[in-house]
């Protein structure tokens, strides 16, 4: 299967002889390094979600800022090895135009491109460019299925849904809150989050006492699904897990459950790559630099992921110090990469699915309650691999 793909893709790439000549021929090392950043024009994920009466329930802000900060703070390193690194931000509107844009970027000499795209576009772009001499870093799509595609040119610095849910389940396990009522929205993102949570819960032998789909209405005929007290009734549970990507249902759920229980998932306690109130391991300096750069915007998990992607690329260039794409590409994937993500541990990429391994914060609106992996969750090789799909359970699809 893999072989067939390769032949097909090589043929496809044969249609782009100019780029092939430029990049497969091992061009001399240039001191100018261009890092790509490919986003979706007017990405709805970064709209400051305005709900009824224009109340803002999402922070807004584009994570390009994280990548910008990553390149800026590594400038002193790039200077030391005589490399001038620039970040080239490009946007397009759909898969075809994104691939066309990426082709231009690769032809202009870009070997590493940060993708800031929703999952289905990451899938299409990476799938159509899998044999190109470029490494794509998915920085903002958490969907687990992207990690199972096994595209050779795709790495991930966004936390996978499974990493986030494993982190949450570790905390619930230590508290012994293992009877869980799941409330799930109808959106594909909600279902993806719920699926990851079920897998994590199963690994820790939780008891899912019920999984109910909520709706956003007040229709009395459907009140079992739209009324907080009713949808949390008729069950005995330690905690409620809510998967609600939009946030409009979940923000009303805490303090409105039938039993006096905590709510986790999309509200209450939330698992993420980053939270601005985290104060360990140099994280305050990172948050503070970010706020200076953005005139006070608070750093989100997506900002962290674009930041760490940029840092990984600049570090690989500085340490590999080679004009050959393959050498830098090998360096970024290798275990000599030891990136500091202000999380107190060294970070690098998992060889089996290209996912960066890193700790996850579990945070309320203004405090980090725990950082996963929690103490006591052990692993035969690396405790960070208790978060996310581990090598033995990983399958390419």
């Amino acid at each position: 299967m893999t072989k067939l793909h390769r032949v097909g893709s090589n043929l496809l790439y044969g249609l782009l002889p100019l780029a092939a000549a430029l990049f497969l021929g091992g061009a001399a090392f240039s001191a100018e390094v261009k890092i790509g950043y490919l986003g979706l024009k007017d990405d709805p994920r970064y709209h400051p979600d305005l709900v009824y009466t224009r109340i803002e329930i999402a922070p807004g802000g584009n994570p390009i800022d994280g990548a910008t900060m990553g390149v800026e703070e590594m400038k002193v390193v790039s200077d030391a090895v005589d490399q001038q690194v620039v970040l080239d931000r490009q946007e397009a509107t759909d898969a075809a135009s994104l691939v066309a844009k990426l082709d231009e970027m690769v032809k202009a000499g870009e070997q590493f491109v940060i993708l800031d795209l929703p999952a289905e576009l990451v899938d299409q772009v990476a799938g159509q460019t899998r044999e190109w001499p470029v490494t794509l870093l998915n920085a903002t799509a958490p969907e687990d299925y992207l990690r199972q595609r096994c595209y050779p040119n795709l790495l991930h610095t966004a936390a996978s849904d499974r990493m986030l849910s494993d982190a949450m389940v570790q905390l619930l396990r230590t508290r012994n809150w293992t009877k869980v009522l799941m409330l799930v929205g109808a959106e594909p993102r909600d279902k993806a989050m719920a699926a990851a949570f079920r897998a994590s819960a199963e690994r820790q032998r939780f008891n899912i006492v019920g999984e109910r789909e909520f709706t956003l209405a007040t229709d009395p005929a459907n009140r079992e699904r739209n009324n907080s007290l009713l949808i949390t009734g008729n069950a005995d549970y330690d905690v409620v897990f809510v998967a609600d990507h939009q946030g409009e249902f979940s923000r009303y759920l805490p303090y409105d459950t039938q039993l006096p229980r905590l709510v986790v998932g999309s509200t209450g306690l939330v698992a993420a790559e980053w939270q601005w109130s985290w104060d360990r391991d140099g994280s305050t300096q990172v948050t503070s630099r970010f706020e200076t750069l953005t005139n006070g915007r608070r750093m989100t998990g997506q900002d962290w992921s674009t930041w760490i992607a940029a840092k990984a690329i600049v570090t690989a260039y500085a340490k590999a110090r080679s004009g050959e794409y393959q050498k830098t590409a090998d360096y970024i994937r290798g275990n000599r990469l030891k990136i500091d993500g202000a999380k107190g541990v060294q970070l690098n990429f998992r060889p089996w699915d290209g996912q960066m391994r890193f700790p996850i914060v579990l945070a309320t609106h203004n405090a980090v309650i725990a950082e996963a992996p929690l103490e006591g969750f052990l692993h035969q090789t690396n405790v960070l691999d208790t978060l996310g799909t581990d090598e033995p359970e990983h399958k390419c699809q």
Partner: protein
Amino acid sequence: MRFTRRTFVATATALLAASVVPRAVAKGTGMIFVSTEKGNEVVVLDQSLAVVKRIATSRRPRDMHFNAAKELLYVACGDDDAIDVIDVATLEVVDSIPTGPSPEVFAFSPDEKVIYVSNEEDSRLEAIDMETRVSIQDIPTGAEPEGVLVMPDGKTAYVTSEVADMVHVVDTTTGAVTKNILVGTRPRRFILTPDGTELWVSCELSSEIYIIDTATNEIKGDSLIFVPPGFREEDVTPVGMAVTRDGSKILLSLGRANHVVIIDGKTHDVLQYVLVGKRAWSVDLSSDESKAYVANGLSDDITVIDMASMKPIQSVPVGRVPHSVVIDD
């Protein structure tokens, strides 16, 4: 304690008076001073490890150094952009030196006329004239500068950048960075071997100790990694270091591995792994080198190590997030 301009004048006058009038030299009180980052105080313990006093300081006290006479203790206070000055005899804060944003680690010039301080938030090594309190050099570094060391001849200063993974070599006459030395991930602190030939750098996130040859400013040999039994390499996050006067023993705190390793200063062989508290950072030796004191950032205590047996004797609670320990003996 936060200093307004007015209290500044008052305390500066008090200090001036104190330095003019001869007084009992506060040498060898045997007191142990511990800065606590979240406690906003310097905790003073006597030799029996009883708390003698908690001295309120400016916010987030971190690195500490005595002047050569050990009459004054300087404390970098990160959240108030100041270095507080404690009178060792009276255990009072008598002065406060304004710095750039978020001072973390500092060192004096050999003549004590200049203080070199890393300002974590604005990525600078700042040189402050002790007499005029004026910033005389402001040297750009990589982000999050931390460890600072001034060579005994005063001509060269070294500073780490935690983000840039490098050591900057600074010519103190011109204030220019003359060399950047790439080391491991997140370089933190320095020690200089007593003969002045080796500068050791702890690299927290790659678990390594780098040794720089001070004659050439090149990295000397392979980096050192010390992994206590039962731990993995990635658990080892070295930060604090201390060296005996004869250079025979070097102590390295291993951070999240909750141990200090004592090694042979020449062969680099492990002499002993000593179990201490959680996230062991700064280490200091008593002047007779019979004891070592370790600040444990995540268990809010310090551990005392007996150097003869190389065993921990006792851990004592001190306050929230101990950062540094220094001993007046």
